[in-house]
């Protein structure tokens, strides 16, 4: 197990190296000049040339890339062209915001997705099964921005139950500690902020959870069906084990591995793919951070932002793989 983990960690190096090269090339292929973006539309050619020189944009691309990687090895993600701030430092609150949103969305998606899948597998080909799968189909097909706007319209504008955007009411005074507001509210014992933060989480989390929920539901269903056909389940039934016990203990445990894979992949996708949700609900997360940087041609921010997201994605996948072994003792990575 340990040697497997180490091997997987070592494999990360070429992967991340590849990602950094890829993002660097793509980012520099985007038309548009960061110097012009910084100076605004009224800049003169002379001013633009000067700023380009200052930012080192006139150096050959290879040199720029080498510098970039050199800095990365020192743990330096570079400085934002626009704000002149350290990206690592600047990015942290955005990451925390996305982590909070993605985590809640994933919890929702897992809970509802798995139960929906279980339900339809248990009552295969019944109206329950059909409606559960219909919900899943709608969930997959519904564009996130459409669902988000619909939610805002119904629950914020018409019913007034929930706030339509942001992480907290703008009028609320609050100094975050970790940047994960619900946690911070608990740490400081601020009940008002706790409630406010949760209210703000509901709509974007539901919007973000829909697609993964549907994926998880479908995967759970098919995986459960497969297991339910196996002999030991038939034996359990014959022994008179209660239906609930069969479903949740005997079947689910064995059906869980493929579902876990999907959950892991979805978590990675949630981190990077929250851009639309974050825009609609003005959630100040990592997706929006990178998105804004694309608008301003802030090369450093774009490439470092994507690199961080990619790294998290790879790490989450690694964790998922390691979890397999914990759940299913038959999987042993150490011995091959």
């Amino acid at each position, binding site marked *: 197990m340990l040697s497997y983990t180490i091997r997987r960690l070592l494999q990360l190096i070429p992967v991340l190296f590849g990602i950094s090269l890829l993002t660097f090339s793509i980012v520099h292929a985007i038309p548009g000049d960061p110097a012009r973006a910084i100076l*605004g539309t009224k800049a003169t050619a002379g001013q633009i040339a000067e700023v380009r020189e200052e930012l080192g944009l006139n150096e050959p691309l290879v040199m720029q890339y080498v510098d970039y990687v050199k800095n990365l090895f020192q743990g330096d993600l570079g400085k934002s062209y626009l704000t*002149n701030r350290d990206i690592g430092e600047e990015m942290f609150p955005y990451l925390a915001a996305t982590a909070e949103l993605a985590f809640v969305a994933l919890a929702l998606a897992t809970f509802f997705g798995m139960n929906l899948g279980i339900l339809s597998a248990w009552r295969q080909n019944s109206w329950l099964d059909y409606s559960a799968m219909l919900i899943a189909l709608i969930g997959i097909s519904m564009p996130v921005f459409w669902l988000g706007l619909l939610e805002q319209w119904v629950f914020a*504008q018409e019913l007034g139950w929930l706030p339509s955007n942001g992480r907290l009411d703008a009028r609320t005074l609050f100094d975050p500690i970790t940047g994960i507001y619900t946690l911070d509210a608990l740490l400081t014992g601020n009940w008002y902020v706790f409630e406010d933060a949760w209210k703000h989480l509901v709509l974007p989390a539901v919007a973000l959870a829909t697609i993964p929920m549907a994926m998880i539901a479908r995967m759970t269903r098919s995986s459960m069906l497969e297991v339910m056909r196996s002999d030991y389940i038939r034996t359990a039934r014959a022994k008179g084990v209660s239906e609930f016990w069969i479903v949740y203990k005997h079947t689910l445990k064995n059906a869980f591995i493929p579902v876990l894979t999907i959950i892991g992949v979805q978590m990675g996708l949630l981190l990077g793919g929250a851009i639309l949700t974050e825009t*609609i609900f003005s959630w100040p997360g990592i997706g929006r951070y990178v998105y804004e940087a694309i608008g301003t041609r802030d090369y450093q921010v774009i490439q470092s932002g994507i690199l961080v997201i990619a790294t998290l994605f790879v790490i989450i996948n690694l964790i998922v793989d390691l979890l397999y072994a914990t759940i299913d003792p038959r999987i042993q990575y150490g011995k091959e």
Partner: protein
Amino acid sequence: MPRRKHLIITLALLFILSTILAACGSSEQQADQGSTLVFGRGGDSDSLDPAQVTDGESIKVTQNLYETLVKYKKENTEVEPGLATEWEPSEDGLTWTFKLREGVKFHDGTDFNAEAVVFNFNRWMDKNNEYHKGGEFPYYGYMFGGYKGDEGHVIKSVKAMDDYTVEFTLEKPQGPFLNNLGMPAFGIASPTAVKKDPEKFGENPVGTGPFAFVEWKKEDSITLKKNTEYWDEGKPSLDRVIFRSIPDNAGRLTALKSGDIDLMDGLNPDATQSIEDDDKLSLYTRPPMNVGYLAFNTEKKPFDNVKVRQALNHAVNKEGLIKSFYNGLAEPAKNPMPPSLWGYNDEITDYEYDLDQAKKLLKEAGYEDGFKMELWAMPVPRPYMPDGKKIAEYLSADFEKLGIEVEIISMEWQTYLEKTGKGEHEAALLGWTGDNGDPDNFLYVLLDQTNAKGPDAGNIAFYKSEELHKLLSKAQGLSDKEERAKLYKEAQKVIKKDAPWVPMVHSTPPLASQSYVKGFIPHPTGSESLENVSIEK
């Protein structure tokens, strides 16, 4: 396994305990915070150092934090006293003496005085100044002909004559000088605060304005509080102002309707009806200080022929454009500058929408059977042009009736600006939003022959008229406003005759607020101080 169970139980207990603790915790800090206005807008600020930024979202905030020597009136761009109470240009227009307001304090408690003004100008203009840091100072360069040592730099020196008198010496007279000083970019910052950390000053802004900085949550909100020491007694009325970024226009409108925000800009023109129908909301329109235009590259065939340009002027249905794309929130443009500016020539008659007349002119020009042309369209919505590509299609429908074959070309925005600046286009859509309320800022920048050269031409028609150049240069060197206005009116006649553009529209961007927000007057420059705004519930 038991170890894991313990862990889970401990975590669960911790969670329950902290929830109980939280429930007992006070929410007193959420108690009365006085009157707070939440301003919803499309994006976050880049920096809160006004001299460093060119984007509207930054200026919207800095206008409330800083003040300039002179400022614009509430509803137009006429100049009135700001941090300076009076001023006097010398006979030759080369020396300007400003008397400063006494007893004004920066938000950090330090005194505002002549030294502070000198410090700020030296920081902006001198690239070798040790506080010329934190980014570029682009607007200084645009408005005052570059920086210290550059050819064309206007300001020779700025001196403190005594504690409350400042003298500017210019290299050459500059007509728009006073108006330039009123631009938000030249807000006076606290020297003490700048010296502390010039690199990070944009995140820790200190000015003399009606509101002081509290905190900035990136991509989320910027909070300001009332400056209780503000020199203009009784102002501001609000205790706090929060600028909230909500990028999506529809989402921002939802936030307004559900009461999350009090005031918003960037309202879609087609949403105005729903605001008018709601008696809890108020609608505003910002007086136009922009122009959306179609520029012909006069160096390329067939647009080097004035008759062709005039013909196409007759082929643009401005009323139709406004109905289709601006939801009525624009006025047709006949001049390259908006009517809210002084010096506007209202006596000019526009080329009428008349395709027969257009055909006749084309025939005279020798293009009876039409020609092929490229029409460049901008890819991004701008206040003066909500949808460049659609507008190009609309125009080409009429042009094609004249036998002209139109190919619409669009590209990424920065590239578009670069290529039009080099004159690679035949005809291109573009626009301009005024900076300082001076006609020079439209006519000279956009149509004078000195700006008709690449790689960054302001005059993308590459229109060169000696006659116009004489008028505009003369006006630039005068400080008498009436004299200047006369020259600008002449200039507009010349431009109309030569038709390097089709000036299309001056748009009036709509805004909305809760009806309990009182005293908000949208300023033509696109941003305003909220010192007169109050909440009356």
